[in-house]
């Protein structure tokens, strides 16, 4: 039962991804063509409000529902990993028109072809794990 809250938050996430057309391939294309403010407004407003959340967590004004302090795990640092991994991700994002979140939401619309993209993404994660020690980070 402790998992039901994550299921409900996931439902909210799936609905907003779908209703705001973030899962639309066309919206991603439009974003990278700089022809609409829509996606920038979404990411921008989420980040601005996210900063307020982070501030509240850092100042310990908000704790978890169990009363524990919230620590944000810092991202791994490395110019090569962030830049090269980021570029590779961006190439795939613009081609698939979906990043990992929307991929799953699209299953809910009955899009069979997205299963191949998800399989590819899982394979990609496996290949990264396999080649990790040979890559610059």
């Amino acid at each position: 039962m402790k998992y039901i809250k994550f299921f409900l938050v996931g439902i909210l996430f799936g609905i907003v991804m779908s209703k705001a057309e973030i899962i639309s391939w066309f919206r991603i294309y439009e974003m990278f063509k700089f022809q609409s403010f829509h996606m920038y407004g979404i990411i921008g407003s989420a980040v601005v409000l996210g900063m307020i959340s982070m501030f509240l967590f850092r100042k310990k004004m908000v704790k978890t529902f169990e009363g524990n302090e919230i620590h944000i795990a810092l991202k791994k640092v490395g110019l090569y990993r962030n830049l090269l991994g980021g570029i590779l991700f961006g190439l795939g994002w613009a081609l698939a028109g979906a990043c990992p979140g929307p991929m799953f939401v699209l299953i809910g619309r009955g899009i069979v072809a997205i299963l191949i993209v998800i399989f590819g993404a899982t394979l990609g994660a496996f290949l990264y794990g396999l080649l990790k020690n040979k890559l610059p980070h």
Partner: protein
Amino acid sequence: MEFITQPWAWYVAGPIIAFVMFLLYYFGERFGVSSNLETFCSIGGAGKFVDYFKIDWKENSWNLIFVAGSIVGGFIAFYWLSPNDAVALNPQTVQDLAAIGIQNAGTSYLPDEIFSIDTMLSLKGFLILIIAGIMVGFGARWAGGCTSGHAIVGLSNLELPSLISVIGFFIGGLIMTWFILPLLF
């Protein structure tokens, strides 16, 4: 009900996504979708080949449940909360897409030229789908996060690695959109 059934504006969606992130931390976890791809590998037994995947994946169960919920959310939005499948794109976007061989842009969420069953079953269509996926999965794990972990959480937390990653996302996305997509269709 009309405010629900019409497409949601950016100033509705952005705050809800920030709220989703807030809730996940409030519930003692974090916001990051692409780490589920590694969990899939671990469940599938990748730990037998690569030590990197030798993890106790049950600790990430909450994230798999979150993803399962997002599938259900997509289903609910599609079947009950949306009167039609159209996306009101910039007319210039529709023209640009027609010029590179993608017709009827915006009449549905996804282009048939990539996502229809017929395309999926062709060699070229299959390769586009699987290569796109491999780049997303490999890139996200190499960079240490995707749009959720880097663009939303990392930027909110003012982390330099996330800023560099997001710049990378855009370099890759711009190269694909402006230079590679026009050659593909």
